[in-house]
């Protein structure tokens, strides 16, 4: 599995970005950039070749779901794998994310091993 992929972490909580970055590093991913919300993430995606997006669901300005829809609607970004991070797996949210084209979702809290498995499963389908 390619550990050199560039991963974008999108979360409005600084600490959660650090936590996810640390978890990713612990399983071998080092090429990581960050954005504080969906709107900043979209600008970051336009200026960087990102291979994988890990985004929180609940954020101000532009939510994870809105970011997902924007990514899928953009011809240059639409194929980018998108892992949604949620604090809960409410059925309505999951359905909305699947309809919008999410690659998979992960419920907080999670371990590095669970995160790594989610990423690898998504990458295997590409």
């Amino acid at each position, binding site marked *: 599995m390619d550990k050199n992929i560039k991963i974008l972490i999108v979360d409005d*909580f600084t600490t959660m970005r650090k*936590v996810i970055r*640390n978890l990713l590093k612990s399983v071998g991913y080092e090429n990581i950039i960050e954005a504080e919300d969906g709107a900043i993430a979209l600008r970051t995606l336009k200026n960087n070749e990102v291979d994988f997006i890990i985004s929180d669901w*609940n954020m101000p300005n532009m939510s994870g779901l809105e970011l997902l829809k924007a990514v899928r609607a953009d011809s240059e970004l639409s194929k980018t794998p998108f892992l949604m991070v949620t604090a809960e797996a*409410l059925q309505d949210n999951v359905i909305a994310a699947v309809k919008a084209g999410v690659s998979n979702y992960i419920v*907080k809290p999670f371990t590095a091993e669970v995160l790594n498995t989610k990423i690898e499963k998504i990458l295997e389908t590409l």
Partner: protein
Amino acid sequence: MDVRFINAFLDATENVLKTMAFVEPKPGKPYLKKDNVAKGDISGIIGLTGDLKGSLGLSFSEGCIVKIVSNMLGESMSGIDNDVKDAVGEITNMISGVARKKLEADGLNITAAIPTVVAGKSHSIVHVLGGPSIIIPFEIEEGPFVVDFCLDNAPS
């Protein structure tokens, strides 16, 4: 009080802190709290609506939260700073999420608001419903913390 709520918040607290901060807090006996003075030095509080209405708070002693956030971030924290405040909000959010998922299995659909964080000695936790609230005390080696919740049909 409904034991389902206590169990949901107790299990969620243990799960989140064990998974994210690698600590195993020891729970104490729940009790009723009638004032709104926080038990700790920093607190996160989140409003709940839906089939249950009210609020959930977490209040940490400084030593306890410094240890928890240091473990979460993989770096040594020296006291309550912006990173710690940010982490308390996220921990509150996660514990609320896990507990709500457990309660959803009992047919209770609950929505949460954005958490707020307050710090300082003897600060207040003002619950949406006013109180009284139920306290679930916990302890780790570095200090105590409590789960402090007040729901529309919690106290009996």
